[in-house]
């Protein structure tokens, strides 16, 4: 690393293309390549979304959870996450600024705040993943792979989604969870759904007011098409299984690909946040130990800052393409 050379100052121009240090320039070109990786992912998302434009899940119906309340509120939680990340970007750039003035105390404080912001963001993402994976309402998958959800009309005539457990009959569940103590000791199975398909179909007979939200979108209104009566019966005849939550094979929100892209893109971004936090922690301790003060400049903060801002930059796009558009 040329920054350790004693005869060169960081702002020196000799042998430096673009007047930038080697480390900083390489960080920039790494970020360009990383930006292309993320555009590949988001581009693939766009490709599949346009392919299934008339059946893709509507984000506002999926990401509605907010902690401490059960009222569905789209956008609020993800907006909070966005603010956390933007704010940690601000503290990072303040650390860079303090580094330019060789103010060790300020750099320490701002680095610490940046790390805390990153941890809050990661925690929020973990919470969101947990809710996405466990799900709450449940749905039924048909033989052709389509996911159907169940809705009811409220007093004003708007449809709202209801959970399978709210209307399924409570007949004795003949299926017992296979555990190691009550079965073949070397075999295990995924947890048995709390309600079975038979119970759901049985429950629907007693609740004629429940309609079915199909995957199909009315492109003029940009809303999911809701059917009831004969058409609903036709769909239910094709029912295959009860689905709760999400995994890579099936999810209760709609297209399997939607869940896969969600896990993959937000997961890859979350991994960037995680490595950013680790880098920031290493640098935080180096600041405390006085490494950069001895070196005579705080350029390392700037380089880590570039990475951290890039993570924020990517989130801005993920936010737009996953939650807004």
């Amino acid at each position, binding site marked *: 690393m040329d920054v350790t050379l004693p005869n060169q100052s960081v702002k020196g121009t000799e042998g430096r293309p673009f007047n930038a240090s080697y480390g900083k320039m390489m960080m920039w070109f790494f970020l360009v390549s990383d930006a*292309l990786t993320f555009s590949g992912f988001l581009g693939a998302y766009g490709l599949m979304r*346009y392919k299934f434009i008339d059946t893709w899940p509507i984000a*506002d119906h999926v990401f509605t959870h907010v902690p401490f309340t059960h009222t569905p509120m789209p956008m609020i939680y993800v907006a909070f996450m966005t603010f956390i990340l933007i704010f940690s970007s601000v503290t990072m750039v303040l650390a860079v600024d303090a580094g330019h003035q060789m103010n060790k105390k300020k750099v320490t404080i701002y680095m610490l705040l940046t790390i805390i912001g990153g941890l809050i963001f990661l925690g929020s993402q973990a919470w969101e993943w947990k809710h996405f994976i466990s799900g709450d309402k449940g749905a039924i998958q048909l033989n052709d792979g389509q996911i159907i959800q169940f809705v009811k009309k409220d007093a004003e005539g708007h449809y709202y989604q209801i959970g399978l457990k709210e209307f399924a009959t409570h007949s004795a569940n003949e299926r017992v969870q296979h555990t190691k103590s009550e079965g073949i000791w070397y075999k295990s199975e995924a947890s048995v759904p709390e309600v079975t398909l038979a119970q759901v179909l049985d429950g629907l007979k007693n609740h004629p007011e429940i309609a079915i939200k199909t995957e199909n979108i009315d492109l003029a209104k940009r809303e999911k098409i809701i059917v009831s009566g004969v058409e609903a019966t036709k769909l239910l005849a094709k029912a295959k299984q009860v689905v709760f939550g999400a995994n890579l094979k099936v999810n209760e929100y709609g297209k399997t690909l939607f869940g896969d892209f969600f896990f993959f893109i937000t997961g890859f971004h979350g991994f960037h946040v995680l490595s950013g936090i680790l880098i920031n922690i290493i640098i935080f301790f180096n600041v405390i130990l006085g490494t950069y003060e001895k070196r005579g400049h705080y350029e390392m903060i700037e380089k880590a800052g570039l990475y951290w*801002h890039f993570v924020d*930059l990517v989130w801005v796009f993920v936010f737009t393409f996953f939650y807004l558009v």
Partner: protein
Amino acid sequence: MAHAEKSHTALIWKVFGLLSIITLVEVFLGIKKYDFLYLNNVLGTSWLNWIFLALTLVKAYYIAWYFMHLKEEKKWLRRSIVWSAIFLIAYLSFYLLTEGTALHDAKNLLFN
């Protein structure tokens, strides 16, 4: 470096304010989803989505220029970064999104 540089704190907070306002506008529009913005189609998507895309690019500009200090870099370092990325990303997205529509049409032709 031996000498201390001028502090940009005021500018940083200004940019933060701007980014926050843009995010709030996005969230507001995302919740309201006004029909006159949402229920139309201009070049493949609604006006609302074009607004979101434009606001996102404005945010990206401010993050890159002021937080990542691109503004203070040499002109050609900036260009080698921004132009490469913008050209390749625009190229990739144009073909992927066009192809997505083609896949959609082919699928509906075959299976509907």
